[in-house]
Structures are given as C-alpha cells and as structure tokens.
C-alpha cells in the first residue's frame, strides 16, 4: 500500500535517503542519551523523542535552508532534522564548551539561530508566540522564509497557543503550527485533557485549515507539511497540522509510566514504528534495499558513537564564563 505514494516534487530520491539516515540519527541520539542518563553519565534532565522521528524529519524535510523552526523540550529530533551537528548537540548535553550553547543550555535549550533553529523551549507553549514573531519579521522585511512551529498536545491547552494562532491568522503570517500529539502531556492522556477528538479542529476557531495526519508516516508528514509551507510562503497564511504519534520513552528521565499500559506501547512499537514503515517504503519503491538500509543504520549508529567521543574529549567551559553572555 505504501508503494508508489507520491512525495512533494522538491523531494528527490537522495533526499528520501537522507531522511532515512536522519531518522536513525535521531533514534540513536536519543537512545544514547537515555543510556547515559540511566548510567548517571550526564546530569539534569532530558525528554526523548524516540518513536517520533517521522514528525521531526518529515516536517523539517520540506523546509528551505532559510526557513526557521521553533522547537520544544522534546527537541533533539527537530534539531537534527534542521541540520544541527550531532557532535555539538552531544557536547551540549555533556555540558561542554563546544556545545551549541557553550554548556549553558543543556537538553532543553539547544538552538542554532544561524541555521534557523530558534531554539528548544523548557516552557510548554513558550515557543509558539516566538514563532509568530519570527514570521512577522519575514513578512515585514519580505524575507520569504516560513516558520515551522513545533509543540505538543499539552501545549494546545496553553493560552499562548490560542493567542498565537489568533494573532498569526489575523496578520496572515507565514507560519505552520505543527502539533506533535504523542498522546500524553507528561502523564495526562490527551483524551482526558482535550474535550474533542482532534486538536486540529481548533484551527476552525482561528479561520485556518486544520489537518490531522498520521505522524508516524513520513510520506504523509512530507506531503501535508509541504502543502502548508507552500500556502504560508505564498502569503495564504497559517495552517494547523496535528500529527498523531507516540513517544516510546517516558516523559523525562524518571517516569514509571503508570498512566499507560505496556501493551499499548508494544502496539505502537510493533505495528506503527515510523522508521520500519519508511524502510518498507524505500524497499518497496526500489529506492533503498535492505542491505543499503542496514549500511545507513550502522553509519548513523557510528555517527552517534563519534559524537559521544567528541563530547567526552571536549573541554569544560571555563568557570569565569558563568557571568558571560547575560547581556549583549
């Protein structure tokens, strides 16, 4: 069934192969981080997006170089998909001077403003108005870029979400609101916290299109996001996309996951895994056979091992940097 499904015209076969590699990079990055937290090798906290690779890679995959994103606390995938260097990301989690934020941000604040990643965010819904502001710059300066704004199902209950969608709609701004509905806001099941079936239906209140998609199907993510990005770029205004997905891991590092069953987790892992599904698509379409897929997977695994070495060999920030960069 996945055979021969069309993808946006800008997406070449080489890009599809890149996406496959990126999905494994995201997965191995977060599995490695999970392992290190479990072993106590890195401190603080982190939020892993294992199982949500198709949303990050697919949505960022249709962006142009100068387009921008705002990300969330569960943002490692967005970062990688927007072109971040996994060495510097890992170094940041290790708190090293070579990290994206010189060791001052950590997992929740990785940003790469030059590459158009306006930053992860520790506040649920905190990035949504910032995306609107970045889109306002694009409009006022006629820069032609689009802002892709990631947030979760939990954030759709924040005031910032509603205020921002309204503002973006009345000002007709080039922003795509991309909700990764992974079924739980920390422990709160979306079914208990949202009184409607689809968060995308909230778009109607703000006069913009709302699209519900299978967030574990990379091809669908590519197609629907591309359409929304094109709309935004053509001056037709914002879109709300809700991608239904699932996080395999707990909310953060200490989560007994009492709010859901192991059977439910197994169902998503076994039957809906985004990488498996995209791998099958690539095999069935003849783009990438099993052997080549395996090579890509191993290369991604190696890249993450190398990132760990890079991080471990990187210097700690000098103590006196504690007071640097508070003000410009």
């Amino acid at each position: 069934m996945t055979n021969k499904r069309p993808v946006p015209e800008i997406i070449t076969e080489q890009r599809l192969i890149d996406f496959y590699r990126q999905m494994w990079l995201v997965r191995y990055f977060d599995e490695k981080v999970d392992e290190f937290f479990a072993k106590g090798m890195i401190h603080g906290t982190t939020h892993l997006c294992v199982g949500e690779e198709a949303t990050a890679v697919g949505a960022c995959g249709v962006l142009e170089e100068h387009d921008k994103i705002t990300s969330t606390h569960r943002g490692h995938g967005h970062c990688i998909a927007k072109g971040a260097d996994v060495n510097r990301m890992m170094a940041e989690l290790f708190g090293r001077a070579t990290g994206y934020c010189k060791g001052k941000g950590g997992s929740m604040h990785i940003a790469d403003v030059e590459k158009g990643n306006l930053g992860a965010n520790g506040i649920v819904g905190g990035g949504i108005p910032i995306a609107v502001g970045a889109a306002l710059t694009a409009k006022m300066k006629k820069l032609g870029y689009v802002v892709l704004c990631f947030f979760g199902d939990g954030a759709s209950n924040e005031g910032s979400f509603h205020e921002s969608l309204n503002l973006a709609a009345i000002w007709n701004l080039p922003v795509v609101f991309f909700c990764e509905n992974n079924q739980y806001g920390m422990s709160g099941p979306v079914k208990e916290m949202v009184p409607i079936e689809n968060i995308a239906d909230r778009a109607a209140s703000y006069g913009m299109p709302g699209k519900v998609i299978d967030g574990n199907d990379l091809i669908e993510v590519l197609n629907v996001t591309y359409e929304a990005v094109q709309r935004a770029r053509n001056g037709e205004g914002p879109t709300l996309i809700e991608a239904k997905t699932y996080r395999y891991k707990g909310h953060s590092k200490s989560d007994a996951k009492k709010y859901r069953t192991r059977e439910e987790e197994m169902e998503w892992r076994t039957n809906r895994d985004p990488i498996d599904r995209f791998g099958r698509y690539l095999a069935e379409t003849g783009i990438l056979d099993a052997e080549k897929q395996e090579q890509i997977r191993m290369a991604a695994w190696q890249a993450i091992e190398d990132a760990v070495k890079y991080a471990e060999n990187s210097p700690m920030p000098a103590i006196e940097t504690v007071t640097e960069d508070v003000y410009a």
Partner: protein
Amino acid sequence: MREISYLEAVREAMSQKMEESEDVFIMGEDIGLYGGAFGVTRGMIERFGPERVRNTPISECAIAGAAVGAALTGMRPILELQFSDFITIAMDQIVNQAAKIRYMYGGKAKVPMVVRTPAGSGTGAAAQHSQSLEAWMAHVPGLKVVQPSTAYDAKGLLIAAIEDDNPVIFYEHKLLYKTKGYVPEELYSIPLGKADIKREGTDVTVVATSIMVHKALEAARELEKEGINIEVIDPRTLVPLDEQTIIESVKKTGRLVVVHEAVKRCGFGGEIASMIAESDAFHYLDAPIQRLGGLPVPIPYNPQLEKKAVPQVEDIIVAVKKTLNRA
C-alpha cells in the same frame, strides 16, 4: 528652548527611531486610531501606517512573544503594554524567554526589544491598574529596567533603550505624562546606567525614582526653608544601576533616604540600601538609612486612601529629618 510633555517626548523618541530605521516598529493594544490608552501613540499610525504601528488583539502573552520572536530575527520591536500591571499576563515571554535566550544559547542570539508600559497610582484606577512592579523585573538577570522621571530623560533613555541589544522594560509614570520640560528636537540618547543628580546638596542624599523624584524635589524646597540642603539623585535606570554616583553622594552627605512608590517590602530601595551598606560609603554614614515605599496593601480606590498608600512629600521631609535627628 522647546518645552514638550513627557508623553510627547516618548512619542518623539519612537518616531525619530522609526524614521531612522525600518527595523523599529511598535505593537500594542489600541495604539492605532485610538492612539493608545494614554494617547502616547496618537498620530503615529497616520504617519507610519498600520504595518509599523501594529494594533494588536488583547493577547499580552502572544504580543510579548511576537516581540521576542521579531527581535530574535532582526527587528527592533517596541511593545506598548497598556498598563504595567498586565505584565503578569506577558510574564513567561519576558522572564523565561526574552531575558534568558541570550545566555541559554551561549551568547549566540540577541533580543533587542523594548516593553514600554505605564505604571503607578494616582489615577483612581485601583488595585489592578496602579501598581509599580519594577522590582520584579530588576530581579531577573537579562532584563534592563528604566524609569524616567522627566521629559528630557524619557526621550533620551527611550532612544538608548531602542538602540540597546537587550530586552528593556521602560516604565512610564501615568502622572508624569503631562509634565513638561526642556527637550531638544534632535535625536539624543542618555546611556543606560547613568544616574542624574537632579539637585545638588550637602546634608542628606535622597535617592528617588520616577514620580518620587518630583516629590523629593518638592521636599527639598520645603527643607531649604529650614536650612536643610538635600541632594536628590535619580538613578534613571535600575538595571544597570549607577552605584558609583550614589556611593559618592553618600560619602559626601553621610546620610541616605531612599524613596519609591512601589511597595517597600522587597522594593528596589532595599537593594540601594544594601548596596550602600556593603560599600565603603558605609563608614561615612552618620545615621541609619531611611527607606520609604508604598504600604503593603493593594492600591485602593478612594482618593484619600490611595494617597495614603504611597509616600508623599511630607513623608520624605520626616525621613530626611530623622537622618539628622531633627524629626
């Protein structure tokens, strides 16, 4: 010498910066045809158009965040927050986002935005429209906090705030909007972090902010009749704070009174008093420091009660005399 009002000075600063750079624009509730709740932006939409004088919905969180996002991507937004009390609704974007982005990102971003907002009591608007919450903002690393007391300062400091690459909270006092003063027509800036000695004196140093500068000057005129000569210092910016000017003054007078309209408890006056206590000016003190601020109550509606809730000229006179053992 041209005299204009504090309100006109604010408008002129914005207009001149908007003339100078396309990156500068203003957003806020009712700032278009209405001209803003206090009339500060009157005429600006006609002059600059609705793209650069952006009338917003009543969404303090989203408009504060939109200012952050615009600043992060190359604009220099000015956000008019209709009443400074409403900062509570914009708090996440100001405190968790604007103030922290540069540091969190390891210095690889900047957020050059100004939040202009009217503060203070005296208009009968009661508890939710009369507060002075500047100490909250001054507590947060990453923000700069400005409180002009005169038309001249308002223009020069606002120009400096717009030119600054950091988020600046610019507190205007509602009762000062109509006060007039000498304001040059050309564009000029007053550096943030430079206090102004509003009146030189020898006997007691009075550090006063915003509208209290005027009350302190009035107190000075009364005290002069009794042969007491006070020095009135206006820090003008709380962050950065010009500590040296205050320290030098206290060394000269040996006595310090600090006065602000904000609630005394945890108010910025405590910061100034402790700064002096920790400095070498401590050795020059001839009397305990006197600290004046608002009562620990919400601002009441009744005019007599409202007046009672914040320091008045008489309170400053008494505090000064206490430091001289003449109360």
